[in-house]
């Protein structure tokens, strides 16, 4: 089998592996498109943001701030802070995958929370082609359903009690459960949860995920070093 065939196969597997996670993305993409237009963005601007920013949290954060007429600097800082935890994704992936400069650039452009979670959960399939397949799968559905929301948003009514905003976190939760395979991993999750709650209580806002990610991983490394508990299973599930 040639390298090209292997890459093509891995790409398709990555694309397909993302399909179940579309469930979280589809309603959120439609909700984003509707919210963006209510905030005054044109259809073109709404779609352009999905094509360029390609981050559900950042896009929704920007739209919500635009809707309330927030100061430009506040919007910029929020957008920057909401993406901050992606630097940790990059560091984590650079240890797991061998990526050329071109791979790094494409990975950086298309990387999302879901694509990162998926490749971590499918460790046996970890190749740059698998990751790119997963990333493009999410990019395609995110943009398709943004367009759907733009075109049909005016006739779609999303009931407030549908809780579509909770579908994406639920997706992250099932990924989290698949990663939490040891007592130490569970302890790290509890610590990260506590840090998150404290940050939110202190109203640290958009940087919360980055701070909790940093703090939880740091404490996990510290506990693993002190207790010398088995940890090989962390982040390796089929």
């Amino acid at each position, binding site marked *: 089998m040639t390298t090209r065939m292997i890459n093509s196969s891995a790409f398709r597997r990555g694309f397909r592996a993302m399909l179940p996670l579309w469930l979280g993305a589809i309603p959120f993409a439609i909700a984003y498109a509707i919210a963006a237009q209510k905030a005054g963005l044109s259809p073109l601007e709404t779609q352009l943001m999905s094509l360029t920013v390609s981050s559900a949290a950042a896009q929704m954060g920007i739209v919500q701030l635009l809707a309330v007429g927030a100061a430009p600097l506040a919007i910029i800082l929020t957008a920057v802070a909401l993406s901050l935890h992606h630097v940790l994704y990059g560091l984590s992936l650079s240890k797991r995958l061998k990526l050329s400069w071109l791979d790094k650039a494409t990975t950086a452009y298309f990387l999302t929370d879901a694509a990162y979670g998926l490749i971590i959960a499918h460790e046996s399939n970890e190749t740059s082609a698998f990751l790119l397949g997963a990333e493009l799968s999410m990019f395609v559905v995110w943009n398709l359903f943004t367009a759907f929301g733009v075109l049909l948003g005016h006739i779609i009514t999303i009931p407030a009690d549908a809780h579509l905003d*909770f579908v*994406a976190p639920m997706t992250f939760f099932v990924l989290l459960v698949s990663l939490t395979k040891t007592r130490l991993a569970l302890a790290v999750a509890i610590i990260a949860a506590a840090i998150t709650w404290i940050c939110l209580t202190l109203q640290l806002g958009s940087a919360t995920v980055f701070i909790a990610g940093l703090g939880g*991983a740091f404490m996990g490394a510290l506990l693993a070093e002190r207790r010398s508990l088995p940890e090989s299973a962390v982040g390796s599930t089929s």
Partner: protein
Amino acid sequence: MTLFLLFTIATGAAFLWRFAGLILKIEHTSAFWERFLRYVPISIFTALVVSSLYVAPELLPLKIVALVVAAVVMWRTRQFGLGVVVGWTTLLILNMALAK
């Protein structure tokens, strides 16, 4: 400020954070650093989930039940999508039942 400039900054920020992590070379990585990176996914996904629980605190008990159901279904079936669908449906049913 034009929206175009805002999009450019938001796109640039998202890209640069990811790219910075990917190109950053840390020489002589220690065992501590290796362990740190291993726990990054768990910490960040926990933070993403807990952040969503903080919104609408009156729904916290229902959301927790829905998450537990989603986790059990995923754990038993190994199907991410099924876990999400069943968890979300649980949330809707509980919400409707309690609203009556």
